C-alpha cells in the first residue's frame, strides 16, 4: 500500500483496541492477577501458585507478564545480554546517581549548553532581577536547611487503625488474614458521601466508588481479582453536600497473607 493512500484506507488501530480490551479489566474483572504477582509466585502456597500458573497457561496476557517477570527475577546473566553492555548501562547509572548528600534529586539529562547571543539591554535587566530573586530565595533556603533535620519518613503501618490525614481507616490495614470484601473507616461529621479508591502499589486504580456511609463493599468482580501475598492501597475522601472534599485519609496499604 502506498503510504499516501493511508488516509483513504480502513484505519485499524488494533493496538488501541487491544489495549482497551485488556485495560478495561486489568487485574480485576477477568481474574487476572496484577503483573507483579508473577514475581511473588515463589512466596505463594503451592495451591495458589498452581492456580496462578494454570491461569497464565490459558491467558496470553498473563503468560506474557510471566515472561517479563521471570526475566526480571532471574540473575542478570540469565537475560543473555552482553556483560559489556550491562557494564555500560551500570556505568551510566553510577555516573548519574540520583543520590546526592543533600538528599536532592539530581536530574539525569542535562542539556548541552548552547552558544547564546549577547544579551540585549532588556535581557540584562531581567537577569539582574533574576539574580536578586535567587539571592533572596537562596538565603531563605539556607535558613531552612540550618534548622534541625528534616523529619524522617513515617514508619510503615503494621496493623490496626490508621489515623493518617483526617479520616481514620479501620480495615483492612497491614497484613490481614483474608482477602477483604469491604473497606471500613470511621464516619466523618458533615460528610454526605465518601469516595473510596482501591489501587495497586503502582497507583493503578482498580476500583473507585462512592457510598453514603461506611463500609464500602467491593464489587464481586473486584474482590475476586484481589490476590493473596500482593499489596494494595486504598484511600477514602469525605465529601460535603456540594460534592467538595472536606477530609481525606492517608493511603492505607493492606495485603492478605499467603495461604498457609
Amino acid at each position, binding site marked *: 500500500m502506498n503510504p499516501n493512500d493511508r488516509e483513504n484506507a480502513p484505519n485499524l*488501530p488494533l493496538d488501541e483496541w487491544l489495549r482497551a480490551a485488556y485495560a478495561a479489566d486489568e487485574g480485576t474483572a*477477568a481474574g487476572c492477577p496484577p503483573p507483579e504477582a508473577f514475581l511473588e509466585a515463589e512466596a505463594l502456597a503451592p495451591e495458589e501458585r498452581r492456580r496462578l500458573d494454570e491461569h497464565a497457561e490459558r*491467558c496470553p496476557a498473563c503468560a506474557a507478564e510471566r515472561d*517479563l517477570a521471570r526475566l526480571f527475577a532471574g540473575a542478570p546473566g*540469565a537475560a543473555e*545480554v552482553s556483560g559489556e*553492555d550491562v557494564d555500560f548501562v551500570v556505568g551510566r547509572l553510577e555516573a548519574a546517581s*540520583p*543520590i546526592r548528600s543533600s538528599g536532592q534529586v539530581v536530574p539525569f539529562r542535562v542539556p548541552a549548553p548552547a552558544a547564546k547571543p549577547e544579551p540585549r539591554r532588556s535581557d540584562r535587566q531581567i537577569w539582574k532581577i533574576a539574580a536578586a530573586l535567587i539571592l533572596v530565595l537562596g538565603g531563605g533556603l539556607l535558613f531552612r536547611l540550618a534548622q534541625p533535620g528534616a523529619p524522617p519518613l513515617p514508619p510503615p503501618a503494621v496493623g490496626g487503625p490508621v489515623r493518617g490525614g483526617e479520616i481514620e481507616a479501620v480495615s483492612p490495614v497491614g497484613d490481614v488474614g483474608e482477602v477483604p470484601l469491604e473497606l471500613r473507616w470511621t464516619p466523618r461529621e458533615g460528610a454526605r458521601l465518601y469516595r473510596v479508591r482501591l489501587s495497586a502499589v503502582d497507583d493503578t486504580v482498580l476500583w473507585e466508588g462512592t457510598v453514603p456511609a461506611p463500609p464500602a463493599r467491593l464489587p464481586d468482580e473486584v474482590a475476586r481479582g484481589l490476590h493473596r501475598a500482593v*499489596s494494595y492501597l486504598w484511600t477514602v475522601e469525605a465529601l460535603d453536600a456540594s460534592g467538595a472534599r472536606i477530609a481525606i485519609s492517608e493511603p492505607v496499604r493492606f495485603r492478605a497473607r499467603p495461604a498457609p
Partner: protein
Amino acid sequence: MDLDRLSDEELIERVRHAADAAADACLAVLYRRYYPKVAAWCLRISGDRQGAADLAQEVFLRVHERLGSFRSESRFSTWLYTVTRSIVINRGVAARRRQMDPLDEEGAPEPVEPAPGADEVVARDQILSELRQAMERDLEPLEARVLYLHYVDGLELAAITDLLKLENKSGAKAYIVGGRRKLERRFGRWLARQSAGRTPS
C-alpha cells in the same frame, strides 16, 4: 556496619530513620544492588545500550522520587519491578504511538465479512470482551503472547524475538502478521467502522 550485609528491607528501614548522609549511603548500596538487574532487563527490552541506559536512569530517578511511598508491605524488588515495568511499557506504548508501525502497511485488513454477532450494534464492552476471548481461543498461544507484548506492552519486535527465544526466520513479525490477520478477519470491519468515529477510551 557493613551495609552490604543488610537486606533490602533493613536498608530501607535505616533510610527512614537515618540522617541524610547515612541514609544516602544506604540508598547507594540498595540501588547498586539492583543496577545490574535493571540494566540487563532494560537491555533485553530495549535492545540497544543507549536506549537501555536512558530507561534505567529513568527507572532509578522515579524510584528515588517515589521511595517515600514505599511502605515495606511488599518486597523492595517487587516494588522496583512495578516501577520498572510501568516506565518501560509506557515508554514503549508512547513510542509506538509516535511511529507508524510498518506492519500497519503490510498487514492491511482484508475485506471479509465479520463473524455472526460481531456487528456494529453490539455494545463496545462486549466487543472488547470478545476480542479478549478471540485472543485466547482463536490464536495460537504464542501468537497471542506476541500480540500482547507488542500492542499492549509496546515492546519492539526484536525485543520480543529475544525474550521468547523465537528461532524462525522473521521472529516475532511472523506471529504478529498471522495473529493480526485472524483478528482482523473476525473484527476488521467492525473496528474500521468504529475507528472512523471514535477511538476506545
